[in-house]
């Protein structure tokens, strides 16, 4: 009965429904997009009505928002933070800097393509995306979660070597990342 496919399906549906309606966002502001989060959260756009709410530490958070350009220095911390988050976890790339470097396309210390280093579930484009776009991004993420397609963490786990190798290519072996112990 418990291992029955239908009951598994129902359980998955309920779990996904809960995850979809309770998105705790890690307050880790990188780049200039962090300034778009307060209007999204406060009275005017009120993301809390969708169940989106801030979480103070990675242990409690579900979603990591990369709000803009990532310097190589920050990238190490972001990856560390991502690895400290508990499954299931999602990443939202925010603004054109995370997609293709944006206006920092020729900068010597920002990465251009976020999904080489982190499994991005949803990109929100714009420079910067307005709160409406952010809400649309959250809605898209909710849709993916409900459909069971937001499997970034799974991807990261499976291709851990690939992602870590990409990181190594930038930072070299100078910076010691603790081995991620799954």
């Amino acid at each position, binding site marked *: 009965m418990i291992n029955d496919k239908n009951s598994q399906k129902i359980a998955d549906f309920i779990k996904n429904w809960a995850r979809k309606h309770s998105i705790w966002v890690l307050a*880790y502001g990188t780049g200039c997009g962090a300034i778009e989060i307060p209007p999204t959260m406060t009275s005017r756009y009120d993301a809390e009505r969708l169940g989106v709410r801030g979480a103070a*530490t*990675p*242990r409690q958070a579900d979603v990591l928002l990369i709000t803009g350009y990532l310097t190589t220095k920050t990238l*190490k*911390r*972001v*990856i*560390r*933070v991502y690895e*400290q988050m508990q*499954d299931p976890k999602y990443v939202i790339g925010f603004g054109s800097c995370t997609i293709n470097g944006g206006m920092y396309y020729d900068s010597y210390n920002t990465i251009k393509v976020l999904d080489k280093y982190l499994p991005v579930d949803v990109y929100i484009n714009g420079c910067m995306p307005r709160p409406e776009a952010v809400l649309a991004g959250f809605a898209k993420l909710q849709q993916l979660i409900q459909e069971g397609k937001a499997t970034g963490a799974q991807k990261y786990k499976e291709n851990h070597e690939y992602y870590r190798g990409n990181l190594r290519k930038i930072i070299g072996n100078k910076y*010691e*990342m*603790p081995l991620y*112990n799954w």
Partner: protein
Amino acid sequence: METILTIFIIFIAGTAATYFLGKLNGVLRSILFLATLAATGWLFFTGITPESGIEFRILGITMGWGITPFSYIFAIIVMGLALLSGIYAVKAMEDEKNLNFFFANFLLTVMSMMGILFSLDLISFFIFWEIMTWSSYFMVVFTGKDVQKVGIKYILFSAIGAYAMLMAIVFIYSFTGSVLIGDFIDNFHLFDTQMQWLIPILLLTGFGVKSALMPLHVWAPGAYSNSPMSYTAMFSGALSKMGIYGMVIVLILIVQQIPNGYWIKEVIAWMGGITAAMATLWAIKQDDAKKMLAYSSIGQLGYIIVGVAIGTPLAMLAGLFMAVMHGIFKSTLFMVVGAVERQTGTSNFTEVTGLIRKMPWTFLAALMSIIALAGIPPLGGFIGKWMLYESLMGSNHYLLIIMIFFSSTAAFLYCFKFLFGFFLGQEEKEWSHVKEAPAMMVIPMLILAGFAFLLGIFPGLILKPINEGMQFLGYVSTTNRFWEMSIIFNDWGNAVVMMPIFYWIIGVFVFFLVFLTIKGYKTTRYVSTKDISTSGEIPKEHENLTFTMGFMQPFLRAVAPVMKRQIDKYYTSIGNGLEALFDFTRRINTGNGQTYALYFVVFIIILLLFKDSLF
């Protein structure tokens, strides 16, 4: 009744043998030491009933030794703690020098405490009291640190107490012609009023010094923290109870007889309350575990003094129960500090962190005794606190209860500091070599912690002898009125039943522990304390992130106004004043013959002037 003599003979022989034969061989010394304790302990627990006693005459003075149901309670504490801390001491002191002196002194202290409890006359009481004081003084200065500061403070205050007591004894003997305590109590109502007030105050001064009552407590923090921890376990657990023992006798049997003697009790109770509150605040401030526990001991003794000074049946039960509990958990905590210090080499919270995974059994003992100290159910500390509050409410001491409550709530702060400082926090590489303390040290701690647990569920086990002792002091039996085996009642008939609480606590705890463990068992993993969410920063090996400096700073800022003045300062200014006075008197002796001649002339003139009124 021969048993009492046998015990003392074994003690004296054991002390001598440990001292002299102990110089030869360490193993022999330990065996002699433990054998003495074991033999006396065995004799005590099997051969002595609370009615046995002997009388004898020396130099025409009748003296007596014997044990009363009341002193039996304290004898249990002393003997039990001596046995356990003795076992602990053998291992803990392994690498020290001059050990035959230490162990002989240890035995001497135990003997003198038993002697105090066995004495039925004031002379032997005083002699044993002095032996206790001196043997503990040698222990305070045993480590050789701060002898000037700590040892002199201790011996000075002990001397003040002893002289006060001696004075009282001389008065008593000159009035009654007998030194038997029973005669003194029976004849006390015949004394004149001045003596009726003076003698109890003198005696209370003597006992107050040992039980670290507020203005007389100055010696305690230094002395407790300076002696070896295996001895402090007994020093704080048992030796300080001698003061309580004497205090109870004075307050209940003697002060009762004074008209308006009620006021002495009130003042002592308030002094106990202030002691508890202030000592707790100072304990929060300490960074050294020994100092903190020393202040904490002073505070806990404050509670006990409040209980025995109020003196209603429930308060007396509470006070004596807390005395037993304090003996148990405070000895455990001092042993824990000793174990930590032996394994790491320091007892400072700011240095040691994260020992929980290295010393799990020590942590368990510490946790249990801290829960008992904080008075959290279901451990024994709660019973004592509960009875104390109820008795204070029943006897209309409303402000005192607030004061006691304040100090026992503030005690959580240092309780947490103790556990956090040693055992929790970041696990540092510096302490990765630390291992669990040897079994001979851990087992006594765990046994004591187990007693703290047992007495929480079955307080009747120890309330029964306490009840008998109180009946000896003239109380009506409190069985089934204030306590049953695992139920305690207050003055108004409300009760707390410990058994179902215990079941629920264990049941709920185990249920949720199992829930937390089996839910997602495979995906739950252990991570090191370096893997914490520090905004993605990775702490380096040498980076110590533990929060230990200025630990309770916000609280201390809030209570700063009351902590500005230290009693030490007042004593220092008294000392300075006396010095100035002596300095002035020194100037009289100028060394000049002419001046002396002048003095003589002045003296003669004064004599001539006043000769009529003088002669």
